[in-house]
């Protein structure tokens, strides 16, 4: 057996180290380690709860905005505020374009290089590439001329000897299966998506002042004037600019992203049998479509799927969430295996790993800065696949039609969903549904403004003197990478405790007190590794979750018996 350490895992947000043990070319065991700690929860203590969202938003700049939303929801929940219709719809629009932009960036800029051999694109025939692309969609740049230009650019780039971010990639690895033409098409769209993402996210600048880290939330609603008759407020005219960008986003999603995903997935169908993982899926649900705050009114539903059983959707309550630290670099004062609900959560960093520089975490009982969240003591997977499965099993009309359509296009059965490829497809389907839904929310917003409703925030509890001495709240949300929640305890107008349980903590969780692996660790079991020096297959499965942290993956291949050879790759 060989133990391989991969650190840094790149093309993610944050710092991730993965160690895996490989035997006979297959992963037998895996460890996921978050290698960076900031202490956000400790920094938030004693601060003004109305400020918390500004701090919390900085948990992530890639899936920016999502922590701001979870934070204001948690404080609003604690103060029992109900936000106005305008604020609800504007929040949906900001979150909606975040999903769409983030998912597309993930596919092209963070994940595609695991499937697409950039160097191979040099030997493609541009005319055949145009034919291939034309068979998938009528996107205007799918022309021989454009592919020729892209290929020439690529050639200049490679010939310069300065390969930049593409240097030392795993080019030529036998796991790359696409024909040169598909590779060239993907490279062209990689470049096109760079321009696209920059444009469409302007919706967040219009509604939030900037991206990343939009700055228009307040506890109780949004910090912006809405008034069709004031040029300095959010007007119908400004919303028409949002419409233009939404249309641009939708055109690319339907004309480029979806066809590319289906085409590439069709050539990697064996990956529908890899990376299944733990089989428990958790979705908090999101995108409220009325003002009740009830999950029944969410566009994407709340629920759980256990043991891949799509015949039942289990209930979800925030009280079911708990975190332990048996294998994490924290202490609970002697009871590290206890599942603590976040209201009672404790963040006491206690590093017990090897002193740097180190080659392996082997032998470290605690091995990550991530805690181990569990739902009613069960490990869960979160993310687009979890959301689509919960919606599918709930009978969601759009999702059902979409999932069935993709399965039929690929010629695979529902069991293919539980896989590395399933995550890629679920993300694409979700993008398609959300960009279409944004028009509905915007129409609702315009209609509401037409009725003369200009309310944007509930300010009845803006003054902290109006608060109870003790209050507790929770804010649930779906972020692009999965179920996200913040919990806040307020005492005497200040934050007494603040805890975040984020998607990549669920997915990247280390083992728990009972030794059960987290979602990434479990999904890696059985992943083929043709060349331990170049473990691109491990990256495929890890990236299919779209990790959001700053860590690394260790591939670990212990030789039989006690002598374990450590390879740092």
């Amino acid at each position, binding site marked *: 057996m060989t133990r391989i350490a991969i650190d840094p895992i*790149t093309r993610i947000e944050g710092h991730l180290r993965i160690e895996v043990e490989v035997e006979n070319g297959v992963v037998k065991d895996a460890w996921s380690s978050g290698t960076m700690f900031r*202490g956000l929860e400790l920094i938030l203590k004693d*601060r003004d709860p109305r400020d918390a969202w500004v701090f919390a938003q900085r948990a992530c*700049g890639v899936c920016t905005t999502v922590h701001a939303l979870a934070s204001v929801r948690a404080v609003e929940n604690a103060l029992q505020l109900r936000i106005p219709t305008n604020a609800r719809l504007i929040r949906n629009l900001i979150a909606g374009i975040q999903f769409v932009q983030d998912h597309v960036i993930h596919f092209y800029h963070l994940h595609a290089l695991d499937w697409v051999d950039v160097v191979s694109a040099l030997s493609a025939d541009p005319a055949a590439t145009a034919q291939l692309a034309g068979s998938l969609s009528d996107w205007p740049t799918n022309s021989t001329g454009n592919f020729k230009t892209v290929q020439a650019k690529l050639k200049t780039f490679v010939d310069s000897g300065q390969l930049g*971010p593409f240097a030392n*990639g795993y080019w030529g690895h036998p796991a790359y299966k696409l024909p040169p033409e598909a590779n060239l098409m993907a490279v062209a769209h990689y470049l096109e998506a760079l321009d696209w993402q920059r444009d469409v996210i302007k919706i967040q600048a219009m509604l939030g*002042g900037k991206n990343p880290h939009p700055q228009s939330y307040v506890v109780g609603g949004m910090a912006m004037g809405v*008034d069709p008759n004031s040029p300095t407020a959010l007007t119908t005219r400004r919303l028409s600019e949002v419409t233009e960008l939404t249309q641009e986003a939708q055109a690319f999603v339907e004309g480029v992203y979806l066809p590319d995903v289906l085409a590439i997935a069709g050539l990697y169908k064996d990956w529908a049998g890899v990376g299944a993982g733990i089989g428990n899926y958790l979705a908090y649900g999101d995108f409220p479509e009325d003002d009740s705050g009830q999950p029944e009114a969410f566009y994407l539903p709340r629920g759980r799927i256990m043991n891949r059983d799509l015949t039942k959707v289990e209930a979800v309550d925030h009280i079911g969430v708990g975190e332990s630290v048996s294998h994490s670099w924290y202490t609970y004062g002697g009871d590290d295996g206890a599942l603590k609900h976040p209201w009672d959560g404790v963040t006491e960093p206690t590093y017990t790993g090897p002193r740097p520089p180190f080659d392996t975490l082997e032998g470290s009982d605690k091995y990550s800065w991530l805690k181990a969240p569990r739902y009613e003591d069960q490990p869960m997977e979160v993310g687009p696949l979890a959301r689509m499965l919960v919606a599918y099993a709930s009978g969601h009309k759009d999702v059902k039609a979409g999932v069935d359509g993709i399965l039929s296009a690929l010629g695979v059965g529902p069991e293919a969903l539980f896989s590395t490829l399933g995550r890629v497809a679920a993300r694409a389907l979700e993008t398609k549904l959300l960009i279409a839904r944004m028009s509905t929310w915007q129409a609702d917003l315009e209609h509401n403004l037409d009725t003369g409703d200009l*309310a944007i925030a509930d300010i009845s509890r803006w003054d902290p003197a109006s608060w109870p001495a003790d209050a507790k709240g929770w804010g649930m949300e779906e972020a692009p990478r999965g179920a996200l929640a913040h919990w806040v305890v307020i005492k005497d107008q200040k934050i007494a405790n603040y805890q975040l349980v984020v998607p990549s903590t669920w997915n990247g969780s280390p083992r728990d007190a009972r030794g059960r692996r987290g979602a990434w660790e479990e999904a890696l079991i059985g992943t083929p590794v043709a060349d331990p020096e170049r473990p691109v297959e491990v990256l495929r499965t890890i990236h299919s979750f779209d990790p959001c942290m700053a860590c690394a993956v260790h591939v670990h291949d212990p030789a039989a018996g006690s002598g374990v050879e450590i390879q740092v790759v």
Partner: protein
Amino acid sequence: MRLMGGASVTTRRSSSGGPIVPRPDHPVRWGRPMAHQDGLYDALVARGISRRDFLRFSAAMTAALSLPGSYTARVAAAVAAAPRVPVIWLEGQDCAGNTEAFLRASHPTVAELVLDTLSVNYHETIMAPSGKAAEQSMADTIATYPNGYVLIVEGGIPIAEGGIYCTVGGRTFESIVRDAADKALAIISVGTCAFDGGLPAANGGPTGAVGVNTVAPRAKVINLPGCPLNVQNLTATLVHFLTFDEWPAVDTYDRPLFAYGQLIHDQCERRAHFEQGEYVVAWGDEGHRKGWCLYKMGCKGPETFANCPTVRFNDRTSWPVKVGHGCVGCTMPSFWDEMSPFYRRLPTPPPFATEVTADQVGIGLVAAVTGLAAAHGAISYARHRRQVAAGTAQTAETVPAGTATMAESTETATSPSPDDVVDEKGTDQ
């Protein structure tokens, strides 16, 4: 008055007293050794950019940098001649927000190409290889371009407990920054965390986070704080470096004056309402809908130095105050503690302009910055001529006397304050 960032100004000194201009006889400048092929202008032409667009870009950069218009040709020439600059971009205690800002580089097409035309050899968020292969990309860059690459650092550097709060490849982030900084030609800190530790350094943070200045030679470092930074300022700073072989003039916090030389308050589109005594006092009130001043909602614009109102974000689309939320002061030192609570109005109200004295703060700073811009242009030009003539670099200059005096004079301003204006609704918490 606290945090008067723009007051005392010194251009960069190296530890030996000279500027960090590479020696004229230095074998390596940008890119490959001795390389001046692959000029950017050629690259732009190859990508279908017209000369007219290129010159328009150069003019915009000249303006952004507060250079005299006559510099446009020089900017264009310098940028066009540069081969791709090798870059190592390190991420420590970060959120990748500055990386995302970088991906939004948006000065239509051309600035994007300037950034494309860097050779980003190591950047964990975008690079193809992982693990050891990724580390090889960094080692190759340092070995191939000693003193010839730009190091960009994002995120705080935790130094408590031997640096165990952030490791990459089993090494502490601190040691990685030190090694990469050693052979870097120049270092840019992007965002507030790399500037002074930022969020992880805020009160309560246990990791001992510090900024790049603490672990790398200050003489090499220029700071572009902001949460995240405005990518336009990164582009302009790089263009300045290409044009003059050195950083633009900076303030006491090593922030370039062209971007951080003026108060937000003095450039704010809502300023007239401040002068008129028209304030938002509750979210969604009439003033909020009409775009009145956000001072009473806690806006930190009166004490924050940055060019957000003029440059704005996302291809000049907007900025927070335009939308309706106050500035949180994110370009300022220790802003997470110094500027919060974010909704509490500033303890020292900014004075009104009066008919007799106008606004002391505004006048003082505008005069100072105008003077600085002019002085900077002249100094840069003079330095350039000296360098050309003598092949030597000259030592740092200080700005003309009087700048500090003007700033100090604001401390004694006794204009009426906005807090004298009675709140009609009385809810100006």
